[in-house]
């Protein structure tokens, strides 16, 4: 069995308690980090090839090096724990089962970049995670891992948990910052990036929970070691959340570069009996859908892009032959329509329109020209919005239509969903015309 890192403590009972966490070596990397030069830490982070685990995959060491280091302006650390993407459920495991690991990572990050205050911005629905984090932070303060003069090093760092009011768009880093400031979650225009103008107008580092939870391991074992666990440009192991019609859904740790097939077979236990794999979504609902022929693609930012999709959050959803792709697209469009902040025109109007069109196709009221219309809507949204939320609808919807064109055409031709033989659009329209 491979050595475990991020999920090391998942099986240990009550590892969320400080004493048990410390018994298993927790917080031991702090003294090592404090003895290191901060420039060395940043270069170790760069060497590690750690890529942001929030979905965009930006190299973490590079992001850290963008933070201004010589300004006297107060700087902030923000942990993005708003995990809300359908199909994604890895960060909550860290927060619920190993919260001290995240805190340990926060302290090292803050020490390295001279950050005095940190916020963990947690999705409001994750009440259990919030309680575990709050308790862990309290324990860490009591033990002197947080607060004033940490480990007698003359370095202060305060960490707070902020419960989100519950909007998916607050996961987008600038929407998150607005939310943290107490405003409606409406993403900001970039540039300026948060590293220059972030929370309360101050330089801010925004990183995902899993990204920061990886930091202690990189300090412990070195950047080269971390890089050696993955593939080119994608260092280290990561958490993969597997869901869908498989035998053993759950969160598993595996090195970057693992193939989707391995994930499915080794960890997920294969498809359910009687279920044939029809398609899979590699990294959360905003990724393009792939057919089983892409099962041998490696989980990495570049490799997944080559396969025609993206690694996203690394949480794979497996879909079987009983699933209607039009219905799936409808659900997804509904989600992105419902969660659009409404600021910019293409996303505000385009997501709702796309939803209405797909919904009418699924309901058996589609017209042949509407597939073209849908693709047009996707093209007009993508790349033309303030934040990437618009793309999150355009990319998957386009891929569903292009990958499963026949299924969409069937819906339109027969004016009903072939997966729901008992319901037809025709009979519906008969009722309405009789009325």
């Amino acid at each position, binding site marked *: 069995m491979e050595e475990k890192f991020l999920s090391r403590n998942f099986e240990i009972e009550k590892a969320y308690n400080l004493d048990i966490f410390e018994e298993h070596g927790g917080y031991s990397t702090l003294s090592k980090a404090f003895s290191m030069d901060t420039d060395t830490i940043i270069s170790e982070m760069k060497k590690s090839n750690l890529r942001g685990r929030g979905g965009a995959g930006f190299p973490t060491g590079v992001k850290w090096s963008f933070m201004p280091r010589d300004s006297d302006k107060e700087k902030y650390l923000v942990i993005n724990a708003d995990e809300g993407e359908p199909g994604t459920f890895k960060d909550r495991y860290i927060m619920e089962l190993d919260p001290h690991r995240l805190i340990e990572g926060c302290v090292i990050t803050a020490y390295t970049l001279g950050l005095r205050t940190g916020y963990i911005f947690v999705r409001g629905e994750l009440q259990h995670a919030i309680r575990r984090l709050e308790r862990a932070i309290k324990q860490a303060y009591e033990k002197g891992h947080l607060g004033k003069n940490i480990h007698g090093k003359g370095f202060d760092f305060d960490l707070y948990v902020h419960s989100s009011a519950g909007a998916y768009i607050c996961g987008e880093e600038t929407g998150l910052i607005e939310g943290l400031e107490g405003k*409606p979650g409406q993403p900001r225009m970039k540039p300026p990036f948060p590293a220059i103008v972030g929370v309360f107008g101050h330089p801010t580092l925004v990183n995902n929970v899993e990204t920061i939870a990886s930091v202690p391991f990189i300090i412990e074992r070195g950047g080269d070691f971390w890089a050696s666990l993955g593939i080119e440009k994608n260092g280290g192991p990561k958490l993969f959340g597997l869901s869908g019609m498989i035998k053993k859904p759950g969160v598993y740790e595996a090195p970057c570069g693992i193939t989707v097939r391995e994930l499915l077979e080794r960890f997920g236990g294969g498809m359910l009996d009687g279920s044939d794999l029809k398609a899979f979504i590699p990294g959360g609902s905003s990724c393009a859908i792939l057919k089983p022929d892409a099962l041998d693609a490696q989980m990495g930012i570049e490799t997944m892009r080559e396969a025609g999709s993206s690694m996203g959050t690394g949480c794979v959803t497996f879909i079987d032959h009983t699933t209607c792709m039009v219905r799936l697209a409808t659900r997804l469009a509904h989600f992105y329509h419902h969660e659009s902040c409404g600021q*910019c025109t293409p996303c505000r*109007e385009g997501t709702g329109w796309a939803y209405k069109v797909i919904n*009418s196709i699924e309901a058996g009221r589609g*017209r042949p020209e509407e597939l073209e219309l849908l693709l*047009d809507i996707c093209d007009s949204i993508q*790349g033309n919005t303030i934040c990437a939320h618009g793309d999150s609808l355009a990319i998957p919807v386009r891929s569903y239509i292009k990958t499963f064109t026949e299924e969409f055409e069937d819906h339109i031709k027969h004016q009903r969903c072939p997966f729901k033989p008992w319901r037809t659009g025709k009979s519906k329209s008969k009722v309405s015309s009789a009325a």
Partner: protein
Amino acid sequence: MPMVTINGVEVEVEKDVSILEAAAQAGFDVPHFCYHPALSAPANCRMCLVEVERAPKLLPACYNPVSDGMVVQTESEQVVRARKAVLEFILVNHPVDCPICDKAGECKLQDYYFAYDAQESRMRAEKQHKVKAYPIGPRVVYDGERCILCTRCIRFCEEISGTSELTLADRGDKIEVRTFPGQELDNDYSLCTVDVCPVGALTSRDFRFKCRVWLLTSTESICTGCSQGCNIHLDHFRNETQRYRPRYNSEVNDYWMCDDGRLTYKNLHTDRLLSPQHNGATDNWHTLTKSVAAKLEKQIKAHGEESIALVLSAQAACEDIFLAKLFHEEILGKKAQLYIAGKPSGKHDDFLINADKNPNRRGIEAVFAKLDGIKDVATLAGDITAGTIKTVYMMGTEFGEGDRSEAVAALKKCELFILQSTQGADLLDVAHIALPACTHAEKEGTFVNEEGIAQPFYKAYEPHGDSLPDWQIFMRIAKAMGKSTLNFTFLSKVQDRMFEATELLRKAEEEAAAAAKKAAEEAAAKKAEEEAKKAEESAAATEEPQDSTPS
């Protein structure tokens, strides 16, 4: 300064200007909704997306600053496609109720639709419904379905009026502009939100359903609400003013004007004095000027020039005041008493609203150079009661800070009271003679604002009824009195004389001031010399014994 190439045209622009502004300098108009030159750029409408060489995506031209060597396309195929898409998106949930929308004809959405989209709707589903005809404030109505969520109105209230009543509420395609709980859009500049709204989502309750905008003719004018002199478009239809809109002037009012001032246009049509009146009976100019002349001559003969009061109005234009000045000097006689009148002062703020509610007090100063001999109208009642004033010739119906009822009571006791005004108000019953003057919409002229800036206004339509510009009335009476020196065929001739005269006055003033300054300086120098002498003397006095001590 950065050089940029826009659609093949090279321009050199200031550092940090936006691509949109640079394009304008190169002669290309980039369509936009949310951008407004006086407000911050949120880049939310996405109408201004342009193609920039080496940029991976289209960029909002309103938000991105230029950099040296930038190459921009504002009309490429890709740009036009994105623009068309944005228009189509905006119309997805738009009610397209142009036939009953007040903005139709001056709506950016309509204009751009015809320029770029102009295709049939591809939207078959039910539209998102939102609040309609909602009274968001006492003077403004909001239509959520027409709103394109550009946030111009919100930013106006945050950045210009500083009152921040508005915000966006809800999200996605249910998002709407709303006031914060317990508030309404009720600030002194709330109607400016109607101007900045690029579509018909915010309409003026005053102008709603009143007139189609394409029927309006617009004349450049000045608001008479206070001494700020905000520049306006005076929009009129069939000889009636329908509304005022602010006209850009960076020195005076930028793009804005206050609500009170904007609604003063109503005075142009209420209770107008439209025909000459003689003891309450309608008369005609021909016979009435003769009677006025005869009466004035009689009064001068009986009680002397000094018994006559000429009341100047700070509401009148410079040209009218100049004729009044000549009328005073050449007809009534220099000993006749001058008074200055106008509206009483009112509320003010540190933006546009001035306490002085008259457009041309500084104009009177300019015409007379100094106001030494001119009394405040508040003293008029006392002078009449004391018997020093027997005859009053009054422009306008205002008594400034003076007590109105006292003034009206005193005027009743006057032997002769001639009123020359646009409205009769409560003075019509008191006046022996009433001469109808026309409003500033019906004539051309000049106002000098609080800052001393002389601003022209132009004639929008013919004078109502028998009314005439004040300057012409003075001329008619002068003529009836047999004095032909007050004879100007055109306003421009009045203006020439006026500028010549004020220039002379100004020079004389300057010379006098220079002389006074010189005299004061000389006196000061003399004094200093004397003092120095004194000090020297006293120093010598004290030094002498000191000198002598060592010896």
